[in-house]
């Protein structure tokens, strides 16, 4: 029983609520112990912390959550199958409130040797690849959320693609979060390892079914060996009252190409830290993003693009659409280390404000230690173009149609780069829903 007279901080409460974790292989036990030690007695960062300047966790720190796995009979909707993208019909893993659901998962028609499985099972079985890579890449300075996940995670996805294997269709990881009275929290964990010359597309989809408060703290780690390719799409459409704090780290080897497209639509507070480390020559990384916030939503993306070796390229197009009192934050760090000559790095953050009361913070941050590089960055904040609005109106289109068309046009280049047709369709519907929900009193013209 918790002694209420004893003041405990948020992180301790989260870890304590789980009770002692079952011991498994030494490597995992050690990892968990270290992670728990890291954050025991620590407070959540405050807005005095530079990395959290515009993203206050005060409200979160006052909430109480039970581990999601304790909800014995989640209030499951009957249309789960509708959330499987047709392209991922044959291979998808479904997690309900963070717990792996065999019933809703399928791993047919995978090439020989490919593993797509629940991470907890794989670690319990002692899969050497999973044991080797888990916890190797998701590392941030001064960060409590990776350790929080590491200390208590159970289920999640493990994907291993052997050398020279290409998986044509995307693999979907569907995280369904149900509408419950209890406030729950979960720590899904994903580990993707692509061996030499492999090729894969992974779709990570977090869906909230209700309007309830919960806390989703996923961590994903990606390891790409030489000459491999991965496209990673993440859709965050958690409940509008949820907290979503995620970490994504990719470690990219020579001649490899990692492309990440992260779309943030849900949650009252979403914070996404993404990191790509280009560890060797001729690697390419894309960290694109699309954020839509309205009501009083806040979405904060902090990215690190770390160029360590010569002749690498990186691409970051981060677009935010802000309506009502919404807030978007983007902090994009690009490191070009001393050895990373001939780096070509591109970063652009564009913000579209549909209301007078929304807020956008943009902070590009370049730290360049090599002398022969090409780095470009830009940040813009603007409204819909009045000339375009007037043009469409003279064609008889209503205010709402005009807003929708132009908002979609703004988001389009990110949406179009996502190579899964049904996600593109999904997103065009999300833009429609977003623009229709507008309470903004601001007249376009």
């Amino acid at each position: 029983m918790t002694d209420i007279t004893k003041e405990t901080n948020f992180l301790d409460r989260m870890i304590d609520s789980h009770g002692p974790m079952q011991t498994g292989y030494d490597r995992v036990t050690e990892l968990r112990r270290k992670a728990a030690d890291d954050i025991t007695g620590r407070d959540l960062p405050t807005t005095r912390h530079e990395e959290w300047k515009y993203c206050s966790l005060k409200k979160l720190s006052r909430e109480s959550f039970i581990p999601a796995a304790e909800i014995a009979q989640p209030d499951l909707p009957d249309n789960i199958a509708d959330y499987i993208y047709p392209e991922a019909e044959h291979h998808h893993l479904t997690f309900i409130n963070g717990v792996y659901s065999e019933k809703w998962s399928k791993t047919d028609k995978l090439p020989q040797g490919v593993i797509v499985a629940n991470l907890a099972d794989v670690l319990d079985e002692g899969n050497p690849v999973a044991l080797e890579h888990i916890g190797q890449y998701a590392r941030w300075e001064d960060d409590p959320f990776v350790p929080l996940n590491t200390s208590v995670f159970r289920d999640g996805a493990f994907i291993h693609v052997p050398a020279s294997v290409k998986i044509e269709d995307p693999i979907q990881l569907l995280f369904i979060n149900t509408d419950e009275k209890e406030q729950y929290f979960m720590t899904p964990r994903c580990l993707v390892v692509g061996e030499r010359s492999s090729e894969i597309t992974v779709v990570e989809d977090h869906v909230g079914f209700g309007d309830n408060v919960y806390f989703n703290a996923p961590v994903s780690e990606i390891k790409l060996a030489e000459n491999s390719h991965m496209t990673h799409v993440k859709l965050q459409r958690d409940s509008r009252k949820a907290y979503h704090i995620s970490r994504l780290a990719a470690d990219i080897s020579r001649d490899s190409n990692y492309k990440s497209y992260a779309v943030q639509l849900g949650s009252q507070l979403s914070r996404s830290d993404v990191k790509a480390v280009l560890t060797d020559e001729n690697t390419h990384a894309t960290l694109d993003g699309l954020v839509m916030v309205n009501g009083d939503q806040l979405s904060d993306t902090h990215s690190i693009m770390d160029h360590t070796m010569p002749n690498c390229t990186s691409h970051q197009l981060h677009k935010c659409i802000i309506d009502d009192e919404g807030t978007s934050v983007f902090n994009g760090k690009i490191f070009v280390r001393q050895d990373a000559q001939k780096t070509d790095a591109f970063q652009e953050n564009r913000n579209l404000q549909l209301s007078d009361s929304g807020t956008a913070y943009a902070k590009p941050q370049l730290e360049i230690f090599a002398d022969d590089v090409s780095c470009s960055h830009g940040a813009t904040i603007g409204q819909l173009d009045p000339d375009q609005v007037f043009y469409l109106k003279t064609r008889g289109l209503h205010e709402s149609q005009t807003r929708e068309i132009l908002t979609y046009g703004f988001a389009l280049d990110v949406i179009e780069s996502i190579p899964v047709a049904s996600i593109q369709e999904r997103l065009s519907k999300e833009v429609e829903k977003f623009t229709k929900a507008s309470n903004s009193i601001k007249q376009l013209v």
Partner: protein
Amino acid sequence: MLTIKNLHATVEGEEILKGINLEIKAGEIHAIMGPNGSGKSTLAKIIAGHPSYEVTRGEIIYEGEDLAEMDPDERARKGVFMAFQYPVEIPGVSNSMLMRESYNEIRKEQGLDPLDPLEFEDYITEKLNLVEMDAKFLERNVNAGFSGGEKKRNEILQMAVLNPRLSLLDETDSGLDIDALRIVSEGINKLSGKENAVMLVTHYQRILNYITPDYVHVLVNGQIQKSGGKELAIKLEEHGYEWVTAKTEVNGEAK
């Protein structure tokens, strides 16, 4: 169809139109000519409802209703169309999708059922011939990557599709080569009839070799200084706009 009475308008506090009177009836083509900065484009934009301009005095009555009370989209649905001097690029929307949505909005206003994409395809195919445009333009994003001439033809294509009562053509001829000018003019001629009217804003007399106006008005310094038939345009071509300003400095009253 359109009656403009003593129209005064300002942009950012500066008066651009200083008392315009103009009457356009169904079946007529009016050419509005004038030197640069005379206010002729402003007149078209104000009728279309451009938000940057403020009507300070006078009124614009269209089909018995005061246009100043209407948003630009409402005017459009009631049959007012403007071909832009500088057509705007709209990323993310194909030309055909925009035209279908527009046309269906106008049909709704008229109490007609919207056309589905297949029906619309049939409908637009015949319109394409009118401006000698290839069907591939329909799938491209609105005006994106179009040449100047293509943009202007696209405006006339939209006019053909939307079948407006009153068309305001804002310098549709400027910058066109002779071939494009001929195509655009022929399109406009085919589209004008007894039921609709055209207000053609132009700086050059050249387009009037192809389109015969019923009236020519010369706008100088925010007022119509002179009105007449098509012969007025020829005179202007010979003598220049100075001829009008010199002659009617005292008071220009349009009839």
